[in-house]
């Protein structure tokens, strides 16, 4: 068993009486890509800032293995905040060189690495232009370049695609897929789809706590439950019938929203048979009937919404 790269245990952060992160523990293995998933205000940014060493935790510990003794662990870290702010009077090239020098490179090495990093994120043509004239997508890519230039062992990205238009989003996701081959990535997002696209592990946060975590493949099968979706015409009789179905013994959980109902069931065959027979017998005006299995999205919505 390989030692994890990052070990977070019982991490807490409170501002006065407000608890932002309420004691979370997780491990991140070398070479993995982990998405920190959750709605706004779940404590994702606070967690990332604590890992990046920008915020002192109120309690708990963060262990980063492999950082040599006496060295600053931030040398091994690349961090991109939610809305990165640069110096507008600098050119993109100058900023990345600045970042590379701060990570300990000499001038010559920094210039070479900066050029490569900018080319990689597709900013070669704009490298000599002032950052003040960059678009939002270019700034985000510049942010990636400055986080990558020193080949960090851990890359922390806070909502890297949330503020981008579809094209910018596409580009950054492509980049992340490439980068994940080389280093360990932790990124936060509030969109499950983004996480599924590049990551193999997710940590779902809500109200400062971890609601669910694990490998995507494991979670997918865990939350793949038989589910029946029924929609009827909008009339009182039909809605009353849906309510009565919700109380049946084979229904594990019923979510009713007017004439739209989602039932988690234990036995799909039996449930389908019973519901359809009853609907026919009591002449219920069905519009839609679907039998299938729930997805991760359902789990996420339930965790986030409930």
């Amino acid at each position, binding site marked *: 068993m390989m030692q994890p790269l990052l070990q977070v245990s019982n991490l807490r952060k409170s501002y006065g009486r407000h608890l932002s992160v309420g004691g979370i523990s997780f491990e991140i293995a070398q070479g993995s890509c982990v998405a920190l998933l959750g709605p706004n205000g779940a404590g994702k940014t606070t967690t990332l800032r604590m890992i990046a*060493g*920008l915020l002192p935790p109120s309690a708990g510990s963060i262990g980063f293995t492999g950082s040599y003794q006496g060295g600053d662990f*931030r*040398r091994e*870290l690349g961090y991109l905040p939610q*809305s990165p*702010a640069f110096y507008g009077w600098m050119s993109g090239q100058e900023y990345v060189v600045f*970042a590379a020098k*701060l990570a300990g490179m000499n001038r010559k090495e920094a210039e070479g690495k900066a050029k490569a990093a900018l080319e990689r994120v597709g900013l070669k043509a704009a490298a000599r232009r002032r950052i003040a004239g960059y678009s939002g997508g270019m700034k985000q890519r510049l942010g990636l370049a*400055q986080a990558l230039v020193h080949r960090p062992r851990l890359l922390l990205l806070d909502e890297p695609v949330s503020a981008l238009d579809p094209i910018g989003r596409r580009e950054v996701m492509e980049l992340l897929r490439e980068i994940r081959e080389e280093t360990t990535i932790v990124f936060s997002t509030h969109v499950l789809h983004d996480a599924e696209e590049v990551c193999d592990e997710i940590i779902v946060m809500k109200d400062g706590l971890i609601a669910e975590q694990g490998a995507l493949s494991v979670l997918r099968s865990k939350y793949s439950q038989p589910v029946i979706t029924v929609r009827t015409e909008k009339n009182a009789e039909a809605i009353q019938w849906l309510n009565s179905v919700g109380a049946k013994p084979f229904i594990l959980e019923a979510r009713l929203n007017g004439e739209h109902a989602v039932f988690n069931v234990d036995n799909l065959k039996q449930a389908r048979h019973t519901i359809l027979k009853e609907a026919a017998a009591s002449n219920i005006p069905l519009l839609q009937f679907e039998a299938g299995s729930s997805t991760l999205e359902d789990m996420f919505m339930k965790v986030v919404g409930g």
Partner: protein
Amino acid sequence: MRNTWIVYQKEMLETARTYKLIWIPVVFILLGAMQPIITYYMPEILQAANNVPQGILEGYVMPGAGTVMSQALGQYSTIGILVLVLVAMNSLSGERYNGSAELVLSKPVSPAGFVIAKWAGLFTILFLALGLGVASALYYTEQLIGSLPWMDVVAAAALYGIWLLCALSLTLLFSAFLRAPAAAFLSLLSSAGMALADSLMPSWFQWTPAALPGLSARLLSEGREAVGVNLSPCLSAALLILFCVAGASTLMGRNKLPK
């Protein structure tokens, strides 16, 4: 240490790119040169005004070179301080509020290193501006009014520089936890308060940094031997500056993230 130097280089590049490295020294040069020139041409200026009573023109006595020089330095304690404080007010608060400090401090840079680099950048601007300003004041004083012992001028300018550096350091301290306008207001208020206290009760406050401008003026008008060595204002100024930089580092460490 190395990274403090890198951030300092970035600071200097910024002051050059934003033309601060040019316009602040130009203001200081103009302020310094104006005093001897206006003093020298005062009779002509008054005559040109036409409606001046006779007695004033005849009673005009050209002040000595030392007086003119100390008046020139006096310009820096009003307009000079204002310019410096307005330049320094954004140094930390601007970076804190727009988030550029967050990105830099996620690298192996300590808040103290960041603050020291900023302070050194401001010191460099002050050094250049005051040096050039005093040189131009000295040049015109020598040309138009009379010569002065160089060493006295250098010592007087250094005393003045320490006082201005105190005002800059105070601005940096307030800039570490307040928004720029509030930082500028508070640092101007506190330096004006110190100067006022010194002028109202000089015997009580002669050990404070606020006594430095007065000391500098006396040095120019009476000479070094007459004034003697008076270290306590310099010592208290050094302590104040140290306190400001240390305080700014601590506060910057706490307030580095954008709200």
